[in-house]
């Protein structure tokens, strides 16, 4: 293994496809990212954002139109898929239907020329690892979706790859099994100490499992960071919107005093937001604030207080959601946790209310 701290590097990678209409589509558009050794790294984004294409380029199923991919410092453009030190867990598992579980899991070892006795031993161990011992002689068809998923995982991990690539491996499972497998995958990743690159469109899944997440949209990596940062400090409107729920309040910068920015939510009111960035007066900005960071009818002089009318009240058990509309046309959703047993709703539809938030809870977004 090369003495490189990065397991995988994408350097200004571009992948263009010719569309059926004859146009050119950049599925991946100048993506640069570094994936660290032993990291659980997720590529997160909606379908068509380029996450699967990125993964396929790392696996070697697609070649970049431009840019470089390095695995442990070694440039991969001349290395075909079958010689790369990575293994993939496919979305639909892609188990060989004409082979037994043992032959499936042993396939990679067989290709490497591992002896039959050694293969049988390691296949057994791999089955133990995914908690399906004794399944050697079954055929993929005889297994449930969850079992097939584990076999696909065992088939990849038994080869002890430098990097494991997972393409929405839990997509076909039902919700309960998904949740179980999420935790199991995370535990497994810590145990085997292999770099995982995990493609998903499920933001909750990415937040639960990842050490770091790359949020992608339209072929561009918008933000690469730890889950907390992605959630608390989204870089763009898209990231803020895609990860969890966010209220966007459009406004104009009126002034800046040190780190405090004064923003006019035109027609609704003036708010103050802490930011280390520099803004110019008159600049169009968006104040992004999470619903759980908003307070209803709990005004405090130190906070931003905005008056509006309740448009809807939705009770969802643990929380109650309030939709509030403001004079300037701004809308916000407030989430109040139902802390006490007999929590009365704080407001009814049509009530005039005050919405408050601290200066530090929003983010100012410009793109």
């Amino acid at each position, binding site marked *: 293994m090369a003495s490189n701290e990065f397991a995988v590097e994408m350097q200004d990678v571009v992948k263009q496809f010719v569309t059926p209409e004859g146009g050119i589509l950049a599925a991946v558009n100048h993506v640069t990212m570094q994936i660290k050794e032993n990291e659980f790294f997720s590529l997160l984004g909606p379908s068509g954002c380029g996450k699967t294409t990125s993964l396929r380029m790392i696996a070697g199923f697609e070649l970049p139109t431009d840019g470089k991919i390095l695995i442990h410092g070694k440039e991969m453009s001349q290395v075909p898929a079958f010689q790369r030190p990575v*293994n993939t867990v496919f979305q639909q598992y*892609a188990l060989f239907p004409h082979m037994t579980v043992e032959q499936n899991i042993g396939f990679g070892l067989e*290709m490497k020329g591992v002896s039959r006795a050694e293969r049988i031993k390691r296949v057994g161990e791999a089955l133990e690892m995914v908690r399906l011992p004794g399944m050697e002689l079954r055929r993929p068809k005889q297994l449930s979706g969850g079992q097939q998923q584990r076999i696909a995982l065992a088939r990849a991990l038994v*080869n002890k790859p430098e990097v494991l690539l997972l393409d929405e491996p839990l997509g076909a499972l039902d919700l309960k099994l998904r949740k179980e497998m999420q935790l199991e995958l995370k535990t497994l990743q810590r145990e085997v100490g292999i770099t995982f690159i995990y493609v998903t469109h499920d933001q909750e899944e990415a937040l639960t499992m990842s050490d770091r997440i790359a949020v992608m949209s339209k072929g561009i990596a918008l933000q690469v960071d730890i889950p907390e940062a992605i959630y608390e400090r989204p870089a763009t409107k898209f990231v803020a919107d895609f990860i969890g729920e966010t209220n966007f309040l459009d406004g104009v910068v009126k002034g800046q005093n040190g780190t405090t920015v004064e923003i006019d939510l035109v027609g609704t009111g003036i708010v103050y937001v802490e930011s280390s960035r520099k803004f110019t007066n008159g600049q169009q900005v968006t104040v992004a604030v999470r619903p759980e960071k908003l307070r209803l009818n709990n005004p405090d002089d130190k906070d931003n207080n905005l008056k509006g009318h309740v448009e809807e009240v939705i009770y969802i058990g643990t929380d109650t959601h309030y939709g509030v509309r403001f004079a300037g046309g701004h809308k916000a959703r407030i989430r109040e946790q139902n802390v006490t047993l007999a929590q009365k709703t704080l407001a009814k539809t049509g009530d005039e209310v005050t919405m408050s938030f601290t200066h530090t809870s929003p983010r100012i977004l410009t793109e």
Partner: protein
Amino acid sequence: MLKFFRGKSNWQLFGLLSPGALWILLFFNLPILIVLFISFVERGRAGGIKIPPVYTLDNYSQLFNACVSEFAGAACDPFLYIGIFGNSVRIGLIVTLWCILLGYPLSYFIAKQKPAWRDALMILVIIPFWTNFLVRTYALKQVLAAEGLLNSFLMGIGIISQPLDLLFNEFAVVVGLIYGYLPFAVLPMYASIEKFDHTLMEAAADLGASPRRAFWRVMLPMTMPGVFAALVLVFVPVVGAFITPDIMGGGKVEMIGTLINRQFGVARNWPFGSAMSLMLMLLVLIGVIAYFRSSTEETRRAM
């Protein structure tokens, strides 16, 4: 049985199935019984059978020992007919092998095209079926003839100075049969390859298999049902073929089909022709049964 006719829908089913069943009964099963009967009686002097029939096993023993015949001369070869059977099977295997070797890459190529192209190319494969088989065979004969297209072309560009003997030999028969039966090999193999999930090739590559090994270990085993179907669809008719060996072989290449044809024609030996027909059926039947015995559940379903 009576219970079956109580339901109205069962009557409808009976009505729908009867014409087909009757057709097969009258024009397929009954003739086979007649052929079976004829194979066990003596021939008539001027063709047909001796009336009243005289039962005999000679037609079958003649097959295994040609010298049993009343016309056998001193230099007769007892294994004449067995040899022709063997020759037919050999030609059948050669043609089948070539049809699979040529048809598999072609099927793969077509299956890899975009859907619209795929249909167009498959139509090109099927189009020859719209032309009479006899016409096609005669056309091919013109291509291979001494003054035919191929020889003229090769002489024209100076590769050869004398025309090659391409016609009236086994080569011509094999070429003619491959030409005639290639589509029968392409159709089932195309169906298999088209269904094949190409992700499995990526999975194989991902696990370290070179394209060659991935083909042998994953793609070929998984498309084997199509190859087997091609094998049966080509081998069975080719072993019994008579038009192609007749035209392309010019009477110099003897196969079971031409032999049987002759018994019902110039030789006027219906009983011997019948016996050979039944032996050919038996041979093919044994082959097909052996195939079904050896094939897996999956390959059988693909048939």
